[in-house]
């Protein structure tokens, strides 16, 4: 069977976990119709919410391993991994997978270590399943911030892999199922509970929160020229009620604060509109902004990656174009 670690919130199964389920189902079908199982961490004394069960059924999940244990009320990667290992052993998993979230990757790293097998992070495709059970699995995964694909061979016992965001679109199975719910309490030691969350703070909409939740982000890069070169960009973001986002080089040079950084190592944004001014579009940055619904690039170089990947572009110097846009906005308002 194939076990998928599922993360949930108040709305049910996270979209990324749904993607992982769809990905896992595809793999199960290719392997000759092996069953798809889900593993979800729940609260002691509570059934899995109906919405979760419905979503899992939609994905064709046969069984849900519902982990319930008092010790798991606070997140601990080692404890979650202990649960996955138990499932893998008890139900005979050939593949253990999860969404490539920070938590997914962390739990899988523990799981792979405990199972003493290899792990593939951020997988986007399966290249070879193998004719016989036990044949190595060959996957393609994202490396170098998504700019490069690596073909990787996994070990011959249990394959552990995380699924990169957007690797597949979540899709319903041809036939919905009614998943069987198997409650269980994993085998854990005290050591598995040492590194666990002792406090969770309030989600505060801080500055970077404003950036990740903004409908419009106006970005600027090296093309701004200096710390003083952002005033028009800031003004445009104010006129549109949006946030300012910058490329890594800008924070590196100390021109703008780090919480404004968009990219693989900064904030990943998915606004309705991203206006990228003077940003060439290095892969690190693209990784953070590619989910924007519409991208408008302003750049002197029509061949810059940001321009060729954008939906709309204006060619020229941001210091001429952005003030002109601001003036036009002002003019139309009055």
């Amino acid at each position, binding site marked *: 069977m194939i076990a998928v670690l599922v993360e949930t919130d108040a709305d049910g199964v996270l979209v990324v976990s749904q993607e992982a389920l769809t990905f896992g189902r595809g793999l199960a079908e290719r392997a000759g119709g092996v069953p798809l199982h889900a593993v979800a961490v729940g609260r002691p004394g509570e059934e899995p919410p109906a919405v979760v069960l419905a979503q899992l059924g939609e994905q064709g999940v046969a069984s849900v391993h519902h982990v319930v244990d008092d010790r798991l009320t606070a997140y601990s*990667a*080692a404890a979650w991994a202990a649960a996955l290992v138990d499932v893998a052993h008890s139900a005979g998993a050939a593949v253990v997978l999860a969404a490539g*979230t*920070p*938590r997914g*990757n*962390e739990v*899988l*790293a523990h799981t792979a270590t*405990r199972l003493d097998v290899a792990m593939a992070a951020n997988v986007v495709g399966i290249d070879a399943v193998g004719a016989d059970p036990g044949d190595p699995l060959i996957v393609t995964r*994202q*490396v*170098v*911030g998504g*700019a*490069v*694909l*690596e*073909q*990787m*061979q996994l*070990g011959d016992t249990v394959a552990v892999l*995380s699924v990169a965001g957007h690797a597949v679109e979540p899709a319903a199975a041809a036939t919905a199922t009614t998943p069987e719910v198997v409650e269980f309490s994993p085998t854990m030691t005290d050591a598995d509970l*040492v*590194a666990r*969350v*002792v*406090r*969770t703070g309030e*989600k505060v909409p801080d500055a*970077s929160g404003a950036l990740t939740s903004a409908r419009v982000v106006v970005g600027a890069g090296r093309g701004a020229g200096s710390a003083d070169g952002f005033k028009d960009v800031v003004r445009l973001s104010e006129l*549109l*009620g949006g946030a300012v986002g910058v490329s*890594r080089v800008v*924070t590196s040079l100390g021109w703008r604060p*780090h919480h404004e950084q968009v990219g693989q*190592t*900064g904030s990943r944004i998915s606004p309705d*509109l991203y206006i990228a001014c003077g940003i*060439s579009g*290095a*892969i690190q940055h693209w990784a953070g902004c590619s989910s924007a619904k519409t991208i*408008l*690039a302003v750049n002197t170089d*029509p061949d810059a*990656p940001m*321009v*060729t*990947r954008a*939906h*709309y572009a*204006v*060619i*020229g110097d941001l210091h001429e*174009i952005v003030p002109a*846009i601001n003036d*036009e*906005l002002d003019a*139309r*308002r009055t």
Partner: protein
Amino acid sequence: MTDVLVCIKRVPGASGEVLLSDDGQRVDARHVGWTLSAHEECAIELATQVAGATGGTATVLTVGSADAIEQLRDALALGCDRAVLVEAETDRFGPVDVAAAIAEVVRAHEAAGTSYGLVLLGNDAADTGDFQVPVRLAYALARPVVTGIATCTVEGDLVVAHGDGPDGPETFELPVPAVVAVMEGGVAPRYPSVMGRMKAKKVAIEQVAAEIEPVGSGRVRLTLPPEQPSQVQVLGQGADAAPAVVDLLEELGMVSR
């Protein structure tokens, strides 16, 4: 007093277009040079902060070729006190092997009298993105580990680490010795000062060979994703394009009138 070990990796710099070696086994860094992952730059900053606050030392370690001494010196210039190069053919090393090689050094240093209360690493390497070395290292050393950490301090016998969780900012408290994987964003990495750089040059670097038969990374080959044909619609050149831009903004419903 906490002696900190911070583990770094020499990785290719970033650009808009990545080049691969002809055999598809590695990224060709000839135009972009070599650097550290951003996560590791923050880990170095945290390492020097913790060492400074507790009166301990910060040792930087890398597993790689002799060329990686360049990155060790960069870390020394940022305030690390000592440096260790574990010489290895990194192409043959997977995350299991890197973790084992680091664990060997930690044990050897412990035997020699330096025990690291805190081992810091980057959350994942900018090139291979395995997300595993910190966790595998922790198991090899039988120490607690937490990943995705933005800031951390050592308070007595506890490592207090903060990161972002799905429900809000999370705090972990781990007994020392512990392993922490750092994610960029909590601290601003520094650039070297002139004096730091001068000091770094004079530090003797400990060089050891990795006594490991590597299990490898499972890499078959690297490829570049197919470039999507550009669909861009050019609205105009220079300031003259402003009306077209504002038309678009209105069309997308971005302008409140």
